[in-house]
């Protein structure tokens, strides 16, 4: 019945959808390499959590070979977005029909040789081979059981990310089949969706794309969504939520949040507006899909790296003051994922850093630009924490374990994978920015975004953009930073100034020569009115070789800066000046965020009270802790 209805109105809908989105599609077609799959889906979700529906799939054979089968993923359902689900039910395919109503054979297969057949990949044998350039239309009936505890459904959204059969990717050589790895779904082609969702009218519905139609009749809510060229389609059912809209620069933001989120409405809307503006300014102006804010169904603090196209997950931060910007960070990260995963199709299982690392780096830049560098995450009651500190703290705990760019399964453990692909990758990108210079780096990232929007880049593609645009120096840096677990650490071990004898000063002025006894590792920097000679010795204490900038400050306020390529194990600078040196610093702007120990980055001529002050603070902390301990226990 439903199928007949869909078929009856199919061409009308197709024409309307095509007319309504022709402008956007025209622009996107010109930049994308693969033809989009067209889905028309009709899903009905019952009050007991049972789901059933039909989908029409239309796609063109863009490969160079004739295809005798089509492959669809039936991924675990509900997705891990619903940890409260009573069981991880899977979508089941009931029937598959060709356009002429003839039934297709359904066969469960493995994604690759040696893989287990686990009902996640289905092969539909075509009635006749599909020649290159030909278009095919299929009709599939499916069902599943959401199986969320009714009580939980009252308070948290039910998020459904795998609620339809997903056509596998087609390359020139044929089908690109991959199993779901490390919890990440296989990469899908960018597709067009027209989806009708029917559910009880006690639910509000959020989904990927624009709302085309909504109606309520006989206790049922019917909503129709249209999404063009998106990485996937997801929907969420929410009870007890307020449905409101905000506009910002012709961009519509929908907020579907419960009452207790009302007090944060202004912060949420501001964060979205600021985040979108910074994303466009920093990382190329891609058209963002319509966004809907919903409360995360996951336990507190786990929403940050969840991704569903068009859905922005936020936690309930009702108790957090404005000075603690975790709410803003979550929204920034969600926006960044919409950009780096939603608009550039990265396979998280094989090149996770390219999406998660760029998203984390984007959040770092957004927080620093909007709130400053020093205390952009927490600035409350004397507590000052920056996102940079959080990233570095996590990175330093796992700096030597794994390289950044490798498949998800190759990491030592899940913690290492998370740290390398998110935190360390973000620090790699920030350090690359320091080496390349902000303007050049920004242009480079914009180039990457424009080249690869609505396409599927891999690590090599990113490196090619770097190599072609930025040159060998940065390419060498990325080779070490992504492909090895090399440790980045430089230290100043010697700073020594002494007055030169007149003949030494004259010789230095004339020749700019290194001091007597120096070897091939030395560089000389000369001053015209030489009175003092200063030796600065820099050691590469890590295994990572990168260019290093050393700044020496002198007693008269003068400064001299020298560069070293960082290849040898140590290097000695000889500088001449009118006054003795007071300090020498590696990376004076503290921009090389990959450096594992910044406490050894400098040397001063005289002693300071840093050790004493830290020690008395530590002593006070211990004294207070002992006092508190005896108050509780003694």
């Amino acid at each position: 019945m439903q199928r007949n209805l869909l078929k009856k109105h199919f061409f009308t809908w197709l024409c309307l959808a095509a007319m309504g989105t022709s402008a956007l599609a025209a622009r996107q077609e010109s930049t994308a390499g693969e033809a989009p799959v067209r889905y028309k889906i009709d899903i009905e979700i019952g009050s007991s959590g049972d789901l059933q529906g039909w989908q029409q799939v239309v796609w063109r054979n863009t490969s160079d070979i004739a295809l005798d089968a089509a492959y669809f993923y039936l991924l675990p359902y509900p997705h891990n977005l619903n940890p409260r689900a009573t069981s991880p039910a899977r979508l089941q395919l009931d029937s598959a029909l060709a356009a002429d109503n003839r039934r297709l054979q359904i066969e469960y297969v493995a994604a690759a040789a040696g893989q287990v057949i686990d009902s996640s990949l289905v092969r539909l044998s075509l009635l006749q081979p599909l020649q290159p350039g030909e278009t095919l239309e299929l009709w599939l009936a499916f069902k599943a059981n959401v199986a969320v505890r009714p009580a939980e459904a009252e308070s948290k959204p039910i998020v459904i990310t795998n609620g339809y059969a997903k056509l596998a990717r087609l390359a020139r050589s044929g089908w690109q089949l991959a199993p779901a790895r490390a919890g990440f779904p296989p990469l899908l082609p960018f597709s067009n969706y027209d989806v009708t969702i029917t559910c009880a009218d006690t639910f509000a519905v959020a989904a990927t794309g624009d709302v085309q139609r909504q109606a309520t009749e006989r206790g049922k809510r019917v909503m129709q969504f249209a999404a063009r060229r998106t990485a996937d389609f997801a929907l969420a059912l929410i009870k007890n939520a307020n449905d409101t809209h905000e506009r910002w620069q012709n961009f519509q933001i929908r907020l579907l949040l419960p009452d207790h989120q009302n007090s944060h409405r202004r912060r949420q809307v501001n964060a979205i507006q600021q985040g979108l503006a910074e994303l466009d300014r920093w990382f190329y102006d891609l058209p963002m899909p319509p966004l809907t804010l919903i409360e995360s169904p996951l336990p507190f603090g786990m929403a940050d790296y969840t991704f569903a196209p068009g859905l922005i997950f936020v936690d309930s931060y009702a108790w957090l003051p404005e000075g603690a910007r975790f709410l803003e960070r979550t929204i920034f990260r969600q926006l960044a994922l919409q950009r780096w995963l939603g608009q550039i199709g990265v396979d998280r299982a094989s090149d996770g850093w390219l999406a998660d690392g760029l998203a984390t780096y984007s959040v770092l830049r957004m927080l620093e630009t909007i709130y400053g560098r020093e205390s952009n995450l927490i600035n409350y009651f004397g507590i000052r924490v920056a996102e940079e500190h959080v990233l570095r703290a996590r990175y330093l705990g796992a700096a030597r374990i794994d390289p950044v760019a490798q498949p998800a399964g190759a990491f030592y453990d899940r913690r290492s994978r998370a740290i390398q692909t998110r935190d360390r990758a973000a620090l790699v990108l920030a350090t690359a920015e320091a080496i390349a210079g902000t303007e050049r780096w920004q242009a480079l990232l914009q180039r990457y975004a424009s080249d690869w929007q609505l396409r599927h880049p891999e690590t090599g593609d990113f490196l090619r953009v770097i190599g072609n645009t930025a040159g060998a120096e940065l390419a060498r840096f990325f080779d070490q930073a992504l492909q090895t677990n090399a440790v980045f650490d430089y230290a100043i071990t010697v700073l020594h100034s002494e007055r030169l004898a007149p003949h030494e000063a004259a010789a230095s002025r004339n020749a700019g020569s290194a001091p007597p006894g120096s070897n091939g590792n030395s560089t000389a920097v000369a001053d015209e009115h030489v009175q003092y000679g200063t030796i600065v010795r820099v050691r590469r204490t890590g295994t990572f070789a990168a260019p290093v900038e050393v700044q020496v400050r002198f007693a008269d306020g003068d400064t001299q800066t020298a560069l070293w390529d960082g290849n040898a194990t140590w290097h000695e600078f000889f500088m001449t000046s009118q006054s003795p040196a007071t300090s020498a610093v590696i990376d004076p702007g503290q921009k090389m965020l990959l450096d594992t120990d910044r406490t050894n980055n400098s040397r001063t001529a005289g002693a300071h009270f840093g050790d004493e002050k830290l020690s008395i603070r530590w002593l006070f902390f211990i004294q207070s802790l002992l006092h508190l301990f005896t108050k509780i226990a003694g």
Partner: protein
Amino acid sequence: MSIIQAIFAGWYIALKHKRILLLFYLANLFFALLAALPVYMAARDSFNVSRAGVEMSGTLNAGLLIDFIYANFDYIAASAVIFIVVASLYLLLNIFLTGGTIAAYIADRERYEPALFWGNAGFYFYAFVRLLLFSLPLYAIMAFILYPGLKAGFTTVLRNVGLLAFSDLANYAAIVITVTVSLCIPIIIDFARVQLVVTGERHVFDSLRKATRTVAQNFRKTYGLLILFALIGLFFLLLYSFLSDLFYRPALVDVVFLLVLQQLYLLIKMQVRLTYYGTLVAIYPHLTLWLPADLAARETHTEEEDER
């Protein structure tokens, strides 16, 4: 006797016994120095002759602190192990000194008598340790029975009234109530200590029972005492925070002043702790017996009511 009067009496008693105050302070300083030594050694390497040292001698730089912790992780780990040992020893010493302190406060002699202090410290040590051990299962009950029970109960109530969207509230309410009830445990233990020293007995279980009854019968006063001392502590903490922020410059004079301020603050904290013991000693007879002063106050109160 009102709790304000008791606090003043306790402050006076604690101030009168300056040697005890000094003893508590020096014990705290000595044990803290032992635990802090490894970090001092590491800090000398990292922050003595470097720009990082200049930055750390001003306001605390969180980024450099993180680097310092990871670069000197062995020192920090050693420090943690030493802290566990030191804290255990300090706890025992504190229990030991408390017996002598309460006895000295009850006797309230004009001059410090070593025999009275140290003799009672030793006499009550074992009984006080047993009191501490008795308190552990009580804390466990709070954490593993009361809190989950309250949380489940509140969640059920919210679900029944259709407000499950506010399920976080159930958790917060359970935490607040559990902490509130848990705070009664140290009051009961402290009253049991006073009870033991006043009666000169060492029947721990009996004193615990009596102390529980005393706290329950005078809940407003005993809990009010705890809240007042918490407020006093908070006041001194805020004062310290405000003053310590003044010494942010990377200069020797600021380092010295900060050290002096910190130690002064800790000395005041010790004085407040001892005032608490003094207050318990002062108020205890008024909660358990009808003393002449209380009877007179009660009669005056009754006469006023009659006149009205």
